[in-house]
C-alpha cells in the first residue's frame, strides 16, 4: 500500500488526493456531457452539498460522540462521511441549480450520473492502494495482504463494479432513453453497490443490531430509483420536469 506521498517536506494522504482528483474528473466529465452553462455551477454545488451533508449525516448517526463535542464536525476524514447521504445531497443540489438556472433537471442529472462511474472507479482504486478500504479477511486466491491478514481487495471490487455500471449506463445512453432514466438507473446501481460490498468492508462499523446501516441506505436508493423508473401513463413532459 502507498498511504503517503512524500513530496519534499509534505506527506500527502494518497487516499484523499485520489478522491480530490476523482471529484475534479467527475466535474469535468459532467460539464462536458451536460453541455449547458449551468453545469459548472451544478457541479460545484453538488460537490459542496455532498461534503456538507455527508459529514452532517455521519455526525448525526454518531451522536453520542458528535453531540458531546460538535467541533468534531470540522475535522474532515475519508472514513467519516456518510456516502449515501452525500450522493443524495449531490443529486438534490443539481436539481436545485438546474431549476434556478432554467435548465432541465433530468438532463443535468443524467449527465452527472453518466460522468460518475469512471471517476468512482479511480477513487476506489486509490482507496485500495492507500489502504483506506480494508476488506474482511479471506483465504480466496486473489486476497491481498493488508493489516496483518489476507483480505478481500474491496477497492478492486468497488472499482470493477463502477466500471460495470459505466458499461451499463453507456449501453443505455446509446439507446437514448427518456430524460431522467440514466440518473435513476445509476442510482439503482449505486444502491446495489452499497448493498453488495458493505459486508466485506472491515471499516464499516456503523450497525444497528448487527445490520449495516449503509446497506439500509443502499436499499433506500434502490427503492427511490425503482419508484422513479416505474412505468407511467403520464405524458413524458411531466416526467422530465421541463
Amino acid at each position, binding site marked *: *500500500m502507498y*498511504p*503517503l506521498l512524500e513530496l519534499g517536506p509534505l*506527506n500527502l*494522504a494518497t487516499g484523499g488526493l485520489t478522491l480530490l482528483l476523482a471529484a475534479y474528473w467527475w466535474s469535468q466529465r459532467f460539464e462536458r456531457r451536460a453541455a449547458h452553462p449551468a453545469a459548472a455551477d451544478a457541479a460545484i454545488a453538488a460537490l459542496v452539498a455532498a461534503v456538507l451533508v455527508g459529514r452532517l449525516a455521519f455526525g448525526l448517526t*454518531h*451522536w*453520542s*460522540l*458528535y453531540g*458531546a*463535542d460538535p*467541533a*468534531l464536525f470540522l*475535522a474532515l*476524514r*475519508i*472514513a*467519516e462521511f456518510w456516502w449515501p447521504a452525500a450522493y443524495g445531497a449531490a443529486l438534490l443540489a443539481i436539481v436545485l441549480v438546474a431549476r434556478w438556472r432554467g435548465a432541465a433537471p433530468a438532463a443535468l442529472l443524467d449527465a452527472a450520473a453518466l460522468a460518475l462511474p469512471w471517476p468512482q472507479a479511480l477513487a476506489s482504486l486509490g482507496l485500495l492502494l492507500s*489502504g*483506506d478500504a*480494508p476488506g474482511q*479477511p*479471506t*483465504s480466496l486466491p486473489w486476497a491481498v*495482504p*493488508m*493489516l*496483518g*491478514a*489476507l483480505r478481500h481487495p474491496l477497492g478492486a471490487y468497488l472499482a470493477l463494479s463502477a466500471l460495470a455500471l459505466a458499461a451499463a449506463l453507456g449501453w443505455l445512453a446509446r439507446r437514448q432513453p427518456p430524460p431522467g432514466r440514466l440518473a435513476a438507473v445509476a442510482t439503482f446501481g449505486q444502491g446495489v453497490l452499497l*448493498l453488495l460490498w*458493505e*459486508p466485506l468492508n*472491515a*471499516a464499516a*462499523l*456503523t*450497525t*444497528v*443490531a*448487527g*445490520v*449495516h446501516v449503509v*446497506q*439500509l441506505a*443502499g*436499499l433506500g436508493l*434502490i*427503492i427511490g430509483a*425503482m*419508484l422513479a*423508473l*416505474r*412505468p*407511467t*401513463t403520464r405524458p413524458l413532459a411531466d416526467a422530465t420536469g421541463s
Partner: protein
Amino acid sequence: MTPEQRWSWLLLAVVAGSLGWIVATRVQPAAQPVAAVVAAPPLVDVSAQTLGGAVVRLSEHRGQVILLNLWATWCPPCRAEMPLIQAAYEQYRDDGFVVLALSQGEEAATVAAYVRDAGLTFPVWLDASGAAGRAYQIRALPASIFIGRDGTVRAVYRGPLSRSVIDGTVAPLLAEPGGS
C-alpha cells in the same frame, strides 16, 4: 396485470430479496476463529512502554478482544472519544475485552497527567517512535484497531469512535470462541 402492477411486484421482490441479503450479511460472531482459515501472520505484534517505563508487548494480551487505540493528548478528536472508550472498557472488561491506548510520540509525564485527569483505567502505553502506527499503516490520529481473540485485525476505524461503533464491533468479537 398492468405494467404498473408488474413493476410494483418487482419492487416488492427486490425489497424482500435485499432485506434477506442485509439480514444474512449482518455482523455476527464467526463460528470459528478467522485465523484458522487465513494463511497470514495472526498478529502484528508491537512493543511499547508503560507509563512506568516497563517494556510491554501487544502479544501479551493474545486471547482477549483488543481495542488498540492510537492517540495523543494534543489531538482533540482523541480526547473526545476517551470517555466513550472508558465506558465501554468498564462494561466489557470482565468478558475479556481490553483497551490498549498507545500514545504516539509523547512524554510519559504529559500522558500520565492526562490519564489521571480523565480518569482512564485501561492500560495506556507510550509508543515513542510511532512503531505501532507504522506497523498498522495508520498515519492520522485517532485510529482504532479491533483485534479478535484469534489475533487477527478484524476492523479498523479511522477517526474518533462513537459508542455505537464500539458496541457493535466488540460485542460480536467477544461472543466468538477463543483462538488457537
